[in-house]
């Protein structure tokens, strides 16, 4: 489905690349989590897949294939077609990703109609339906709300609703829960898992919560300083891996019932 072949991403010719020799293979319906310390290049990878690197950033080596086609050779037009339909994205703050002075509904309708042949009314109905699927109970009311009127958890669920409309083949998520409280985080994760079940969507998610990654994913990639230091399934990472960095990360995660030696 998605195959990243040995890419290197550089922001600055003279300094060390932000991401080096990164490879990843994602099967349909697979959930893959990227973990690692801040600045290790996780976001850069996701943005590269999205064709949305900051202007200075370029993929200087390697290639990314989506459904067998090289994403790096996509034109602006190609991107416009694939974005939001086959590849969707959820951000840390979905609210900020929406126009602050327009209602959720108007943006939802605009989005749906940009990619499909729907009347305004059909699009609206579809939007309401999607919002209710992510358990935002009063869909109509949500559609008429402005982003700033919603709580963080609601906004994130609206973000998922947006990402789900066109049943994307690939969902990219950059720390979608890190700004949320634990209870809301749990709601959110449940929605994402459901999306995978219902649409067979593959998910690549960035998180710094190792336990969360372990719970969700079929595949975990540990990154450090732009390189993959470890990767494998949950069992491998939690119990088998001998990688120092992985071990260090695991030991730092606070655990219920655990105690510091004081």
């Amino acid at each position: 489905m998605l195959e990243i072949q040995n890419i290197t991403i550089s922001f600055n010719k003279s300094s060390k690349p932000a991401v080096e020799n990164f490879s990843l293979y994602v099967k349909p319906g697979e959930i893959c989590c990227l973990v690692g310390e801040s600045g290790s290049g996780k976001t850069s990878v996701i943005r590269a897949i999205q064709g949305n690197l900051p202007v200075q950033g370029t993929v200087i080596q390697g290639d990314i294939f989506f459904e067998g086609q090289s994403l790096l050779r996509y034109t602006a037009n190609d991107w416009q077609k694939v974005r939001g339909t086959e590849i969707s994205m959820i951000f840390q703050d979905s609210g900020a990703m929406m126009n602050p002075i327009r209602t959720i509904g108007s943006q939802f309708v605009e989005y749906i109609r940009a990619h499909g042949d729907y009347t305004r009314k059909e699009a609206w109905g579809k939007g309401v339906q999607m919002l209710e699927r992510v358990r935002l109970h009063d869909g109509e009311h949500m559609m008429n709300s402005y982003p700033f009127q919603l709580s963080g958890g609601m906004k994130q669920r609206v973000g998922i609703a947006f990402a789900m409309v066109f049943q994307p083949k690939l969902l990219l998520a950059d720390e979608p829960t890190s700004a949320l409280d634990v209870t809301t985080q749990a709601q959110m994760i449940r929605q994402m898992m459901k999306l995978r079940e219902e649409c067979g969507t593959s998910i690549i998610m960035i998180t710094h919560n190792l336990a969360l990654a372990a719970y969700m994913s079929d595949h975990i990639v540990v990154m450090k300083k732009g390189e993959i230091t470890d990767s494998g399934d949950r069992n491998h990472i939690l119990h088998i891996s001998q990688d120092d960095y992985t071990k260090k990360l695991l030991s730092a995660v606070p655990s219920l019932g655990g105690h510091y030696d004081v």
Partner: protein
Amino acid sequence: MTKKTIASRILQIIIVLFGIGFFTFGLTYLAPGDPVKAMYAANGSIPSEEVVEAVRKKMGLNDPFPVQYFNWLFNCLHGDFGTSYSLNKPVVTVLLQRLWPTLKLTLFSLILMLFVSVPFGVLSAVKHNKAADYLIRLFSFVGISVPSFWLGVMLIYIVALKLKLLPVISTGTGFKNVILPAVTLAFPMAAKYTRQVRAAVLEELHQDYVVGARTRGLKESTVIWWHVLPNALLPLVTLFGLSFGSLLGGTAVVEVIFSYPGLGNLAVSAVTARDYPLIQGYVLWVALIYMVINLFVDAAYEILDPRTKVR
């Protein structure tokens, strides 16, 4: 805006007007020169001391300051701003005569300014650091640095005198008469706003919601016109109201150059003639118009920006 905020704003306007009234009245009270003599001088005669004294008494100029102020205030509240020394007419009549030409000029130059600055500002931001951007920036740069009184004179010289395209004198009532003054007024403003629009659009282009809109696969034109532009122009709305106000005042220079029969021109001659009632009336009026316009603009802003509404 809720009724309460509107009411409080109106109250604020009234308080400010009182303050301004007190301020201008106080200033003219303290100003050198005798208003009676000034009044006579404006009529070309030199009164004897007895006449001056008699008139002072009649006009209440010998009363203590608070009495004078409250008399004046009382009259103002009844719509009587006194009689202009130099024009021998009620201040209100004079101001009303000049109001419309100035409003016309102001509105016309604002519209002109918008038609230039919005497209140019957006173009400049979208073509950031490309040739078009540099060209527009150069234009706007010249615009903010060139003195309008110089520009106006040059426009008269070239457009009216040499090319004979438009009349030299702007005293008439026709549409043609307002073009040159409006262009002179609009040019520096357009330059300023082009910069503002550019800066605002550039900033908005870096906002997360633009990334969001793009990741949803919206067309770039949709992103610019339906997402970026409304957000960029919104904060300019308030600024716009302010400009309207400063235009009302700033027209003085341009009106003088073009002999345009507006409020600014009137103010300048009122000052030269030391026509205190007229100066006071002018200042109060312009402040009032200005504040009312700003009230409307702020109300418009609140309607346009949903974030200002309470949940």
